[in-house]
């Protein structure tokens, strides 16, 4: 079973076409194994991306260097999955 310890989901708020294009470039970096939950399209839409633990530093550095604003939407994806499992088990038990 694939687990997601340390994976974070970042909500990125691009403010210009330039930043959108930078995010598109980021999405082409296959080695980072990024999973875009919402794609960089235009600056009216936030971009959500799941970042594996091993890529976090690189992605944060990229965003920081280009002054692209982001928030951490999910701090540890596996924590949420574990919580979801607990909720399902609790529901079944009840």
């Amino acid at each position: 079973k694939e687990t997601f310890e340390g994976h974070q989901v970042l909500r990125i708020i691009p403010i210009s076409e330039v930043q959108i294009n930078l995010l598109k470039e980021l999405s082409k970096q296959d080695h980072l194994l990024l999973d875009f939950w919402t794609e960089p399209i235009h600056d009216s839409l936030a971009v959500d991306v799941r970042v594996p633990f091993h890529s976090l530093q690189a992605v944060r550095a990229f965003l920081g260097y280009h002054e692209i604003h982001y928030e951490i939407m999910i701090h540890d994806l596996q924590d949420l999955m574990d919580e979801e499992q607990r909720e399902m088990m609790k529901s079944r038990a009840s």
Partner: protein
Amino acid sequence: QPRTTDGYDYASYHTFSEITSFMDMLVQEKPNFVSKLVIGKSYEGRPLNVLKFSTGANRPGIWIDTGIHAREWVTPASGTWFAKKIVSDYGHDTVLTAILDKFDIFLEIVTNPDGFHFTHTSNRMWRKTRKPNDGSICVGVDANRNWDAGFGGAGSSNNPCSETYRGPSAHSEPEVKAIVDFVKSHGNLKAFVSIHSYSQMLLYPYGYTRTPCKDQAELDELAKKAVTDLKSLYGTNYKYGSIINVIYQASGGTIDWTYNQGIKYSYTFELRDTGRYGFMLPANQIIPTAEETWLALMAIMEHTKNNPY
């Protein structure tokens, strides 16, 4: 397992087999109203179940599907709630009763059962189908890029490892082909609603071309009404418009194909986003999500009833 659909926990996420049991219970409880059609089999052999709500023969139909992207768990959960809502409200809610006195409603709760099962057992973040791709280690196709509407164009990928891989040919996925065959054989669907999550949008064709669809004005007006109704419950804001204008160019999408088949009221939803969870929307959000979406669905279904074509 609950013994009746009243005992089913609508505020919890469920596995494919639990949802299937729910469907069977609903049919058993209302055999003259609800039936279960099996329109095909998934790649791994799971049944593609569709609930049919019908009060008479030879009616035009309204189609609703949920869960074509496996990890969007709130969509099949909402679909389950819709099924119970239809049964509960028929004969009590005058608007729904009037709709069901003229139309059948078809509801496919788990459109991608292999992917859905995979999210429960192996990879919660899985999106695509589960058919292996020749010559690639990557599995599955984005079933919302696999339709014969601008198939292969921009906004889909020819890389099997991409999340938006379109597949080797249009309708190559059994999960898609089953719906295609059903739509064609039925021949009288008047509305088609495909439900996704998340990003709070109600969209209409087209996604593969910037050319506006010929009914754009009416679809836009109806979308406005639907999202207004939806917002009235919990204040959830939705964007609406054509796929290509509101989100991005996406070729081979479901509702572009259904619209081109002549189903005028073709819409796709992106359900609510609390801004904190994405695909991991907590189970306590299922019922609010379903309740507000139901208002928009009712707007679309009622308009379909009142505007025959």
